[in-house]
């Protein structure tokens, strides 16, 4: 049964290993995956600890529905205090690691302390070992995985860090496979600080399906529906790169750091060009969408790229060369960097260079000019290996700005010290509120109401958003409006939290298509697969509980309303390109603050973003940390 999967606690300082069952009351309260990770994080860390010190914990987990019949149960979640922001560190990735860890008997693995020499963790059929990894230190993510597969068999699944994680780049990622990257929050650096090069899983243990026949039939119906949607078909053909074509022509892509909202002459990096390099798509475990390409560039095999890579090596740095996108995607994943943060930091450095805030002296002669593809790829190397200006950029927005000085931070597009996706939210208040309030920093995968961009009719919005909790306010179909958007952001927050607890991919839920998985589906998946009985409303309550844990973690670290705010540039610099409906737009400061008030009120938080006592009591969080495990 999924419910009998265990928690493994590894103390790297002492070498002690403890294996614990996960109490059913915690499953009912937090389900698993990201939700339970956040409970563990809050309970096993002290306020104010050094994210790169031995007191931080790194938690690697599978969702409760990992390796079951629930559409695409592939997601691995990693949590720790973020070395980039100091807030909750949370990252979620696809691939095959979480299912393999589930077959090995574990859902959560908590790494404490710090090893003295490089190690990897071997998780195999109910057992955990700490093993020497001195031969792996220094290797790229793909070479690490290849070496371990040669040593332990091709069936093992590896979650590892690259040189960037070893070098404590504050936005280093963790990788499984060529392309599955947990990039956000810099948790690769946390593993690097603990000298953990990899976690390797191999399992042959049964995951009992509670009602196998019904689970097969229900999952088939859901998959048939998903694979038949236009969204899944275009995702399966081009991956998330399809988003670029429409958002760029509208004027919703953050270009050249924040100077424009559209890349002119973008045709050469449009998604169709992948056809010259690809030999087919691949999917994560159990997925019918298969959104990444297998491609070869300059004789190198890799997978992807996604919208974020197009942005990082395309419009953000003023390049329109498709091979640069493909090579940039390869290098960042190869060395273990978060593509998104890397692209943002490079774009910021280029704007600083253009404005004369940094000069050739700072860059050792590297010409950080828009569209300089060679400089862009060189900068990736410098960041990963902390050479030259890369050593400063590797520190992330706030620390790098402190080193550079001269008002440089005001040009950086970040929230809570984490850079934004390469999208421009000035014309879209709902999306702007989402990135401003994201618990891990500026991020589109915490709460982005993607379907808001479709201008859906109000009756459709009512159908989607009044379930499982009724909303008494009004909606607007116009993505430029502020009405009802706070509720939409709240609803998506809960949706994404629920799906992260289950361990299912966000692309299968109501994110970019209004007809995909919602709370009702999750409730049924939990019933058929795990035998965990939670109504759709109870799934919502779990999500709310988990989200509040993230919130109180951040409050404990000193974050509050002032940190739920966007850069002044969103309010002061109008958009300059794109369609007439998005040109010349800024966010309205008063309306944005009104929306933020409404958002807090919907959550049961006070005007400063602190959960009210009755909210904590309603969610059963009034005695945290409760140390139940």
């Amino acid at each position, binding site marked *: 049964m999924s419910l009998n999967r265990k928690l493994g606690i590894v103390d790297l300082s002492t070498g002690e290993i403890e294996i614990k069952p996960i109490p059913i009351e915690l499953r009912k309260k937090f389900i698993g995956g990201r939700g339970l990770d956040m409970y563990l994080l809050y309970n096993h860390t002290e306020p104010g600890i050094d994210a790169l010190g031995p007191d931080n914990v790194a938690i690697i987990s599978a969702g409760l529905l990992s390796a079951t019949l629930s559409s695409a149960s592939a997601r691995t979640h990693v949590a720790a205090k973020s070395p980039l922001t100091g807030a909750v560190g949370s990252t979620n990735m696809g691939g095959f690691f979480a299912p393999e860890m589930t077959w090995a008997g574990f859902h959560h693995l908590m790494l404490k302390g710090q090893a003295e020499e490089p190690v990897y963790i071997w998780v195999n059929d109910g057992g955990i070992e700490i093993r020497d990894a001195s031969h792996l230190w220094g290797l790229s993510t793909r070479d690490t995985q290849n070496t371990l*597969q040669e040593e332990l068999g091709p069936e093992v699944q590896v979650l590892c860090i690259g040189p960037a994680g070893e070098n404590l780049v504050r936005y280093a990622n963790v990788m499984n496979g060529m392309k599955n990257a947990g990039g956000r929050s810099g948790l690769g650096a946390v593993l690097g600080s603990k000298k953990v090069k990899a976690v390797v899983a191999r399992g042959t243990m*049964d995951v*009992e399906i509670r009602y196998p026949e019904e689970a*097969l039939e229900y999952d088939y119906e859901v998959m048939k529906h998903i694979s038949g949607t236009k969204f899944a078909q275009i995702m*399966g053909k081009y991956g998330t790169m399809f988003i670029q074509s429409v958002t760029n022509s509208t004027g919703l892509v953050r270009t050249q750091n924040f100077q424009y909202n559209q890349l002119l002459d973008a045709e050469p990096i449009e998604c169709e060009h992948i056809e010259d390099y690809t030999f087919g*798509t*691949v999917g994560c475990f*159990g997925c*019918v969408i*298969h959104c990444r390409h297998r491609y070869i560039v300059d004789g190198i095999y890799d997978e992807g790229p996604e919208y974020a890579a197009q942005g990082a090596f395309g419009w953000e740095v003023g390049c329109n060369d498709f091979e640069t996108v493909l090579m940039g995607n390869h290098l960042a994943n190869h060395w273990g960097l978060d593509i998104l943060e890397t692209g943002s930091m490079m774009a910021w450095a280029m704007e600083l260079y253009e404005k004369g805030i940094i000069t050739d002296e700072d860059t050792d002669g590297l010409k950080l000019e828009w569209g300089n593809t060679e400089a862009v790829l060189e900068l990736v190397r410098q960041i990963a290996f902390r050479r030259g200006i890369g050593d400063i950029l590797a520190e992330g927005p706030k620390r790098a700005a402190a080193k550079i000085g001269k008002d440089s931070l005001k040009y950086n597009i970040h929230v809570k010290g984490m850079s934004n996706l390469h999208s421009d939210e000035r014309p879209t208040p709902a999306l702007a509120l989402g990135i401003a309030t994201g618990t891990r920093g500026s991020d589109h995968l915490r709460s982005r109401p993607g379907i808001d961009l479709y201008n859906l009719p109000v009756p459709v919005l009512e159908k989607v958003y009044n379930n499982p909790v009724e909303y008494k306010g009004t909606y607007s179909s116009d993505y430029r409006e502020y009405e009802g958007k706070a509720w939409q952001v709240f609803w998506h927050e809960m949706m994404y939290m629920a799906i992260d607890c289950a361990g299912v991919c966000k692309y299968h839920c109501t994110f970019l298509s209004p007809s995909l998985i919602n709370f009702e589906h999750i409730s049924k998946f939990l019933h058929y697969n795990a035998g965990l009985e939670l109504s759709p409303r109870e799934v919502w309550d779990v999500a709310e509980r988990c989200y509040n844990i993230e919130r109180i973690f951040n409050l404990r670290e000193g974050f509050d309303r002032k940190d739920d705010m966007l850069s002044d540039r969103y309010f002061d610099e109008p958009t300059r390109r794109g369609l007439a409906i998005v040109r010349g737009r800024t966010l309205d400061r008063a309306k944005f603050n009104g929306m933020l008030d409404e958002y807090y009120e919907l959550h049961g938080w006070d005007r400063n973003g602190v959960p009210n006592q009755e909210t904590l009591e309603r969610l059963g969080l009034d005695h945290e940390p409760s140390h139940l495990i």
Partner: protein
Amino acid sequence: MQKMILVDQDQCTGCRLCEMVCSVKHEGVSNPSRARISVRKRFMEGYLMPVVCQQCTDAPCIAVCPMDALSRDEVVGLVRLDYDLCVGCEECVTACPFGGMRIDTVANRVIKCDLCDGDPQCVRFCFPGALEFVDANAVNLRKKRVAAAKLAEFMSREVAAQAGLIPSGVR
């Protein structure tokens, strides 16, 4: 009518859903190490290949079985395993050149693809279409059709090239 599972490697996305649904259908659990089908991969090249029992007409597993527990059902085109006769000697596992016979270490027995009594779940759940369950007679015709289409396209291009309409060698 004999039917067979046809593998179109180019369509495989490596998701391994076939492995999971196979183990759920037969054993009620998710566990690829107890599945009859397996997707083999080469990590550094992105190579993917689903491997399953080929239901051979002259099957090595049948030839080596000392208990006559394996037999071929010529009506449906299936190599059938009779557990009442099988003693679990695993000779068939050694003999099979495809890895189609497998040892289930949980139930302690040999397992093989039984085509799910005519509705193979791996095929049903393979939405990309890498696995198809097709009439054995039609397999040959389908392949001929695909080959003919490719040949026709090539020849029309060659004709065009010779007429100077497009440069020779352009794909």
